[in-house]
């Protein structure tokens, strides 16, 4: 069935409110979740959830975008479009994870970083940039799963990770196809055409080597994520913190080789 979907149908599927929300992943995959709030600078951004919990008895930090599953929640969580406070909360929790030597698992599902007046005033660019920089040198393993729509720097700010996985029907792109079409052709309605050009499906991105793996969807989705996390964490724990950082650096360094 998967092969019959066009790229834009995948975009629409990736955005579907029928898909699990981050709270469902946390509930099914981890135990004893304790949500932690705030960036210690200004405010708590509800568009990003973070906290600590146990994964098969081992402590982990979990961070991800929260969209909500109905209109009321969508508005409350700003449709998963995070503000600088959200990215700074994420960084604070990653620094804390590094201190207590626990791995970080991130869940990406966002139409992009929030384009608003307050977000700009509070340094949206710098908040994202600092996350990219910090994630490039964090000394604990980081694994990312793109569960729905991963768009723009707003997605990447949680995804400079040792392993980046995508769900079979998730998409990951430089920005939304609507935004892309509007930049290229000044016509957001050509989003479907844009989706094909953008090469944003998990299958295409795996082929480019920009992601590490694809998780099949369906009834055993949670079991598949659980297996992947156990396998990858076991692998990543074999590396010294220094080797881990070096390998992560090299991994992103190789993307878009040019001479």
């Amino acid at each position, binding site marked *: 069935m998967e092969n019959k979907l066009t790229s834009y149908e995948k975009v629409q599927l990736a955005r579907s409110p029928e898909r699990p929300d981050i709270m469902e992943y946390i509930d099914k995959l981890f135990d004893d979740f304790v949500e932690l709030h705030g960036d210690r600078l200004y405010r708590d951004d509800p568009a990003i959830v973070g906290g600590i919990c146990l994964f098969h008895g081992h402590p982990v930090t979990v961070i991800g975008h929260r969209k909500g599953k109905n209109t009321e929640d969508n508005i409350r969580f700003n449709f998963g479009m995070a503000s600088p406070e959200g990215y700074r909360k994420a960084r604070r929790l990653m620094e804390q994870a590094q201190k207590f030597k626990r791995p970080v698992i991130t869940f990406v599902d966002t139409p992009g970083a929030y384009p608003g007046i307050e977000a700009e005033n509070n340094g949206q660019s710098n908040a994202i940039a600092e996350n990219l920089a910090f994630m*490039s040198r964090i000394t604990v393993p980081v694994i990312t799963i793109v569960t729905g729509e991963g768009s723009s720097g707003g997605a990447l700010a949680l995804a400079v990770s040792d392993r980046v996985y995508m769900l079979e029907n998730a998409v990951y792109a430089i920005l939304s196809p609507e935004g892309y079409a509007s930049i290229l052709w000044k016509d957001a309605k050509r989003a479907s055409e844009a989706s094909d*050009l953008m090469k944003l499906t998990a299958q295409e991105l795996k082929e480019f080597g920009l992601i590490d793996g694809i998780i099949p969807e369906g009834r055993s989705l949670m079991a598949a994520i659980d297996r992947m996390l156990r396998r990858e964490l076991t692998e990543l724990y074999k590396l010294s913190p220094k080797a881990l950082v070096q390998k992560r650096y090299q991994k992103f360094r190789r993307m878009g*080789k040019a001479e």
Partner: protein
Amino acid sequence: MNINELFLQKRKGWNTLLNLRRSGAGNQCECPACHELIDTDRLSEAMYICPSCHHYMSVPPKERIAMVADEGSFHELYGNFRSGNPLSFPGYERKLAEQKKKTGQNEAFVCGTCRIEGKKIAIGVLDGRFLMGSMGSVVGEKVSRLAEHALKRRTPLVIFCASGGARMQEGLFSLMQMAKTSAAVESFKSAGGLYITVLTNPTTGGVSASFATLGDIILAEPDALICFAGPRVIRQTIGQTLPEGFQHAEFLLEHGMIDRIVERRELRRVLERILRIHN
């Protein structure tokens, strides 16, 4: 305009963003702000500042370097890097060829080493004329290599930014350049390197949300537009009029996002001073 003049201009290599016009006296260009006609021969001497309204026009990379570097000290690095077409995006090769012809450069980032007051530095300049200074794989690769070069040689790193953001035609490869360049400058900074960025008009999107805003010291030119999301996108999203001066350098200074605004004529002196203090 005859063939010889065209060649002469190509050698000069900077004129195309400016709307060139032919007048009796010689080539003139129009100031994008006040539409005054300026003799192109005078632009370089005027540091690309409009003599009539003081608007800061965009500066071709090599002229920008000449403005701050000791005379004849610049050595270009990675000048021959060229973009591929990773997504097989229709028309991208043709577009790149046009930009190359227009600017006389292979890509939107020119970099190398130079000296300022005798002190050796690694320097890079984004070219807003080349596909809006957008960051694709080559720009990302050159920024990263320059940071690695500066790390190896233990020299300070200075990058002038001017960019519309990520390069659309390279899709997710472009997004990954944000991670790559941020990691490279971060690794340089962690090792004790001094990293200075100068944000010029415009510094936006994927460039402002990566290496541009990671400077140990962030300088900006007056009135430069510096933002993540552009004013048009924000207006469309929130449907409100934007505050006066929103996203301009003075506004960012007030909000604590940059260290200083520096007049173009003062840039060399300020860089000299910062470098001297870090000696």
